[in-house]
């Protein structure tokens, strides 16, 4: 399995990247970590005529807190993000999810932005972006725009980025309330395999233990990670008792239309994704109470 021939260029800045994208045809591709693109090219499911290598662009790497947002530059390696104390502190849900992403070898190369742009329905980083309403910043020669996660993930493996655009960063809102907890649960065949079903939740409780804020999303059971608006609405204001969570989550089976494959059929995914959501919400509640 060898990739078809292509041209290769390395760029040193975001401006250079945008210029290269503007000048290249629509079949040029950016390469960041390459942990999905290179296999796709080996199998010739992707056949770009030109690879524009954005590894090594300093302004595309880094992790920082800006106001109430955790900002991760697009080319930051997953391994560095997982090891970051800033991420663990500002967005522990993302840190938890990252430990399920790939293996040591792939996390050392794979990037946060690459995973977002790849938009795999089972991938953890897009799931957390959707759960927390992250914002993506995209740049092209025409300028910069911000895209909410709800508008970024169009379909499986498809985002709303234009061919001439480069994702430059992702911004995760930080929940400052100390009575906040998070939960992340997934089922996969082996540790680090793609999730058959996954769920992420973040909740804030008031002094009486009632839920004032809840975000929940699931992955692996729909073409993109899916926010569970009806579950959030049903549970906000409750004490998040096991019973309440279970009742509110019954609707999930009707919300999803999972695809079956060789690893798990659609019925299994529909059932297990509901269980993952229940566990994620319960974990978020338990942590918020601590």
């Amino acid at each position, binding site marked *: *399995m*060898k*990739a*078809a*021939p*292509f*041209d*290769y260029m*390395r760029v040193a800045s975001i401006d250079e990247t945008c210029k290269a994208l503007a000048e290249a045809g629509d079949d040029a591709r950016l*390469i960041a970590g*390459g*942990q999905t693109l*290179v*296999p796709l*090219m*080996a*199998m010739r499911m992707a056949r770009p005529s030109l*690879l524009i*290598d954005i*590894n090594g662009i300093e302004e595309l790497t880094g992790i920082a807190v800006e106001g109430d947002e955790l900002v991760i530059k697009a080319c930051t390696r997953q*391994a560095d993000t997982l090891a970051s104390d800033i991420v663990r502190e500002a967005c522990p849900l993302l840190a938890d999810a990252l430990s399920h992403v*790939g*293996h*040591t*070898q*792939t996390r*050392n*190369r794979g990037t946060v932005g690459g995973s977002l742009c790849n938009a795999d329905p089972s991938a953890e980083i897009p799931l957390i972006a959707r759960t927390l309403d992250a914002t993506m910043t995209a740049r092209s020669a025409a300028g910069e725009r911000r895209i909410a996660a709800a508008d970024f993930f169009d379909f499986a493996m498809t985002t709303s980025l234009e061919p001439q655009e480069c994702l430059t960063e992702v911004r995760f809102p930080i929940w400052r309330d100390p009575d906040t907890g998070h939960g992340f649960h997934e089922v996969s065949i*082996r*540790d*680090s395999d793609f999730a058959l079903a996954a769920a992420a939740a973040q909740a804030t409780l008031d002094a009486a233990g009632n839920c004032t804020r809840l975000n929940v999303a699931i992955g692996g059971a729909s073409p993109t990670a899916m926010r569970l608006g009806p579950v959030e609405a049903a549970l906000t204001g409750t004490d998040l008792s096991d019973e309440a969570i279970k009742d509110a989550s019954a609707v999930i089976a009707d919300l999803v239309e999972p695809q079956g494959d060789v690893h798990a059929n659609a019925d299994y995914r529909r059932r297990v994704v509901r269980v993952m959501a229940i566990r994620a919400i319960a974990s978020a509640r338990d942590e918020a109470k601590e």
Partner: protein
Amino acid sequence: MSEHTIKLTVNGREMEGRAEARTTLVDFLRDALDLTGTHVGCEHGVCGACSVVMDGVPVRSCLIYAVQAEGAQITTVEGLEGADGALSPLQDAFWENHAMQCGYCTPGMLIATHALLQENPDPDDEAIREAIGGNLCRCTGYQQIVEAVKMAAAKMRGA
């Protein structure tokens, strides 16, 4: 289609070769630099047989094009042995525990666990299993590999 001259440091030696852009790092190491210790397995990032250390961390050399490794510091399985050609404590422990059957996955297993021991001199079973989670052994000789890594770790700590 572009062809490139690639200069990089492999096992402490500066090396140079030419390759098409589409040549993966593992094919470049084996075919252009004659370093055939690194094995080609699945060629699409599933098996881990091609693991090498690049700029201090283990990566899959089938998922990096050689041209991307310009200027990089690479350690392959050939770089693990001592200057006198003796097996490293880790390699010796693999031999001692018979931590291989067919041996195909062995270079990747050695690189993955070498990188682990650089970072964590006293890994428990779980850390070792996590470190080789991205490396397939189809003979399923995982148990001996875990034993070997523990033995090597103890020896390297002077325990």
